[in-house]
């Protein structure tokens, strides 16, 4: 019993341990962990909750953020996005998919000297709004969004 429990803990690794620790009230969201991974933010379902979990109060819509992606994805398993920010002092760029089980897909910290520009690919369970969220060095949040349609394909339906 003990041995299997130990094995289970070992097998599932850091996240589960962190989860247990959080459940036990040992850590608060935002607490620095060995390799920082903001579990609270990745568990959220809405833009507002995600912003809160990342330490902000709210996010304002901005025209200085561009989302480049096809309007229609041939397959939701891989949807390419390029996010570019002209918001002064951009310190982080996050990609959120509104209708995914959890809204936050990825967050990139942009140190000084790195262009506020990322290109990556995310999964989309269905047609949804996709939000690019920018955090500035002074802790303010800005966002832009666009709808991406996900289509079914092939013979299998």
């Amino acid at each position, binding site marked *: 019993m003990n041995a299997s429990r130990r094995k289970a803990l070992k*097998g*599932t*690794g*850091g*996240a589960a341990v962190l989860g247990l620790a959080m459940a036990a009230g040992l850590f608060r969201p935002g607490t620095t962990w060995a*390799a*920082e*991974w*903001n579990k609270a*933010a*990745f568990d959220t379902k809405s833009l507002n909750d995600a912003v809160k979990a990342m330490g902000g109060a709210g996010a304002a819509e901005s025209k200085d953020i561009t989302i480049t992606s096809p309007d229609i994805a041939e397959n939701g*398993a*891989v*949807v*390419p996005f390029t996010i570019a920010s002209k918001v002064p002092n951009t310190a982080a760029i996050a990609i959120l*998919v509104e209708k*995914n*089980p*959890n809204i*936050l*897909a*990825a*967050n*990139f*910290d*942009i*140190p000084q*000297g*790195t*262009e506020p*520009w*990322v*290109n*990556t*690919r*995310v*999964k989309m369970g269905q047609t949804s709004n996709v939000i690019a969220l920018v955090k500035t060095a002074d802790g303010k949040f800005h966002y832009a969004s666009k709808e991406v349609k996900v289509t079914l394909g092939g013979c299998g339906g």
Partner: protein
Amino acid sequence: MADPMKIRANMVGDKVEVKVLMSHEMETGQRKDAKGAVIPAWFIQNVTATHNGKTVLSAEWGPAVAKNPFLSFRFAGGKPGDKVAITWTDNKGDKRTDEATIA
């Protein structure tokens, strides 16, 4: 053992453009196998890129990043011959670091 990454780092104007492909299942934890059992989540959580020891990008990922992830970004201050190193860590604690030379 995870497979090596494919990293390309090229000068684009005065900046270095980095393109990385990583070999990873990025299992969401939402899917079920043929017998109906949930396939546990298994995904890269942290990615760090360094140039001459300085972090040029760090990322936190959830399971919604696509399988066999692709990432591209650009940073200033690099020159041909310099090394760019990328490290990822997944939620099972598996870790991999690979390096590329800027062309």
